[in-house]
């Protein structure tokens, strides 16, 4: 058996003001990347704010914010273009980092003609094969064994690719978490498991998901290292992810990262945390805000300029406004598309049903969005 190490102590590089903690090793990240990460986090926050507003106005059916969790998205920072990501539904920043555009994002939310998934799923269920970002599923944890399968396929194909998967701490209760971790441990698949522990699975606190001291400690049962990092500390997240990706790429097997963060708002636009959570609890996390900590770090490095942030925020707002206008005008995917992609070629029942539907009067959607 291979001895594996679980790091239960929270790994941190930055303090709450963005200063490097004494004695902490700082990962090597080019300055322009640090700036781009900051910009991408700013985009996520701007996007989340705008999308939730239009959801409240009735222009969007559903939305999920990630405010306060943005740093954890950058576990994908060490990945290459040839690596694969099996996302959950709250990692917007990783998509933008990989190259998913504001238009891509908003068109999917609207399920319109330009949606690259052809309006097949409700908002927030993106898919981008050109980025190796796999289609998101609502049932949690299903992506975990799939990521392992892709990792196994990378090994079989003799590539040095890495598959990374995101999930929440609630998902660690599922069978698929166990199954996926176990398969990865046994096969030494090049996989990085990123558990975004944001404290809450809709209304259920993390204490009700596990009796283990930490989520990272679960890794030991699968024969892989587990690392617990401050998920609001961008440098700690990237450092842990870099180590895990390097291990995977070198053929040394999988790693689980628990990124400790906090869901500051509701699970989704349909949620109301005031029913189940002490309203003071989120406030205590405001001072750990990941964007603010990165901003502080940039200031200490002399890289921050308030003008730049203002300009960027304004630019993103403009781009979002423009994308929303286009998305509104785009209209729905064509009726025939309902029957496409069930199979490579439509089977006779689908052809028959398509002819039937095309011959009917069009039905007006009862939904405005």
């Amino acid at each position, binding site marked *: 058996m291979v001895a594996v190490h679980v790091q239960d102590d929270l790994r941190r590089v930055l303090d709450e003001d963005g200063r490097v903690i004494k004695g902490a090793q700082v990962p090597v990240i080019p300055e322009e990347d640090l700036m781009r990460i900051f910009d991408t986090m700013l985009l996520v926050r701007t996007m989340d704010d705008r999308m939730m507003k239009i959801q409240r106005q009735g222009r969007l059916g559903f939305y999920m914010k990630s405010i306060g969790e943005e740093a954890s998205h950058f576990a994908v920072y060490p990945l290459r273009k040839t690596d*694969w990501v099996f996302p959950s539904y709250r990692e917007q920043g990783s998509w933008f980092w990989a190259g998913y555009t504001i238009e891509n994002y908003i068109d999917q939310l609207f399920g319109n003609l330009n949606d690259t998934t052809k309006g*097949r799923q409700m908002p927030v269920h993106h898919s981008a094969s050109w980025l190796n970002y796999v*289609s998101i599923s609502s049932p949690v944890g*299903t992506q975990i*064994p799939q990521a392992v399968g892709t990792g196994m396929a990378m090994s079989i194909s003799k590539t040095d690719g890495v598959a990374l998967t995101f999930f929440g701490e609630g998902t660690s209760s599922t069978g*698929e978490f166990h199954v996926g971790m176990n398969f990865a441990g046994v096969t030494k698949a090049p996989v990085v498991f990123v558990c975004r522990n944001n404290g809450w699975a809709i209304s259920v606190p993390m204490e009700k998901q596990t009796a283990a001291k930490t989520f990272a400690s679960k890794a030991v049962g699968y024969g892989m290292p587990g690392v617990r990092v401050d998920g609001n500390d961008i440098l700690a997240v990237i450092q842990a992810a870099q180590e895990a990706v390097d291990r995977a790429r070198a053929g040394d097997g999988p790693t689980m990262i628990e990124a400790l963060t906090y869901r500051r708002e509701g699970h989704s636009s349909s949620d109301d945390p005031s029913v189940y959570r002490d309203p003071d609890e989120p406030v205590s996390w405001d001072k750990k805000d990941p964007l603010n900590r990165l901003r502080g770090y940039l200031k200490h490095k002399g890289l921050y300029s308030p003008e730049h942030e203002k300009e960027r925020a304004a630019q993103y707002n403009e781009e979002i406004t423009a994308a929303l206008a286009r998305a509104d005008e785009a209209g729905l995917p064509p009726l025939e598309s309902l029957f496409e992609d069930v199979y490579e070629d439509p089977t006779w029942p689908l052809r028959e049903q398509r002819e039937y539907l095309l011959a009917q009067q069009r039905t007006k959607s009862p939904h405005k969005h």
Partner: protein
Amino acid sequence: MPTMNIIQAVNDALRLEMTREPKVVVLGEDVGKFGGVFRATSGLYDEFGPERVIDTPLAEAGIIGTAIGMALYGIRPVPEIQFADFIYPAFDQIVNELAKFRYRSGGQYPCPVVIRTPYGGGIRGGHYHSQSPEAMFIHTAGLKVVVPSNPYDAKGLLLSCLRQNDPVLFMEPKRIYRASRGDVPAEDYTIPLGQAKVVREGEQVTLIAYGAMVPIAEEAAQKAAEQSISCEVIDLRTLSPFDIDTLLVSAKKTGRVVIVHEAARTCGFGAELATSIYERAIEYLEGPIQRVTGFDTPFPYSLEHEYMPNADRVLAAVRATLEW
């Protein structure tokens, strides 16, 4: 031409395709050194090695989940579920994931996984080694369902499944795994999906069956012939999408239809077949379509011989439709 049973034909198809296409891998419980509990993957481990013939941990959701991940990446996985009765832990991965990947991603992510699984009763296996769960999967948009009834079809159909780009559930009739023997060409050949086969021509009654019920229907047709009743027997081979044209030609000719399956009756596949025929050919029918099926009970152990459709029951249904 070599003579093979269904197991050997499946094995032959896998070996042939693994030789031709390096992307094909087999995975599942006991499929490696042991060659599978029914020996369908026998010898493949030695020939192709542990990277392409993978003994997985014991978890069906993991077998299908990892197979999905492989297929997304461009590998051609052929997972084995040891018994169809054990498929339910993987139900979500099959129904919600595998079958929906192409659709939900707007065509970005085809997911060609061919799941092989032995199904059906008559082997003294009780509830957990005898089930015929095909209807649940035929009801699943995005999945194809194929059931061979003999070695020749098993090889040709499996090769077809491995060379198309949709997920397939390939259900193997384990009761006749070894009992069904026949000539199987050593060379490469395919049988198109979606095409039924008229395995016996007849004039008065159409018998529709698949898998292990095909020999039962043929036996019934033989008994009927001894009573001067001419039955046509159709082997569906592909259940989804099934071959409506062949069924209609026969039903219109005979005017009488008996459907045989060993799965439970209510919402069984026979219901869909019967309705599809009624919708398109009711004016040709001389009497109600008969169904000879398993019962709406769990699959039993001691009384399985009573549960399973047999030739006498099929013959009784033939007489009932003639005498209606």
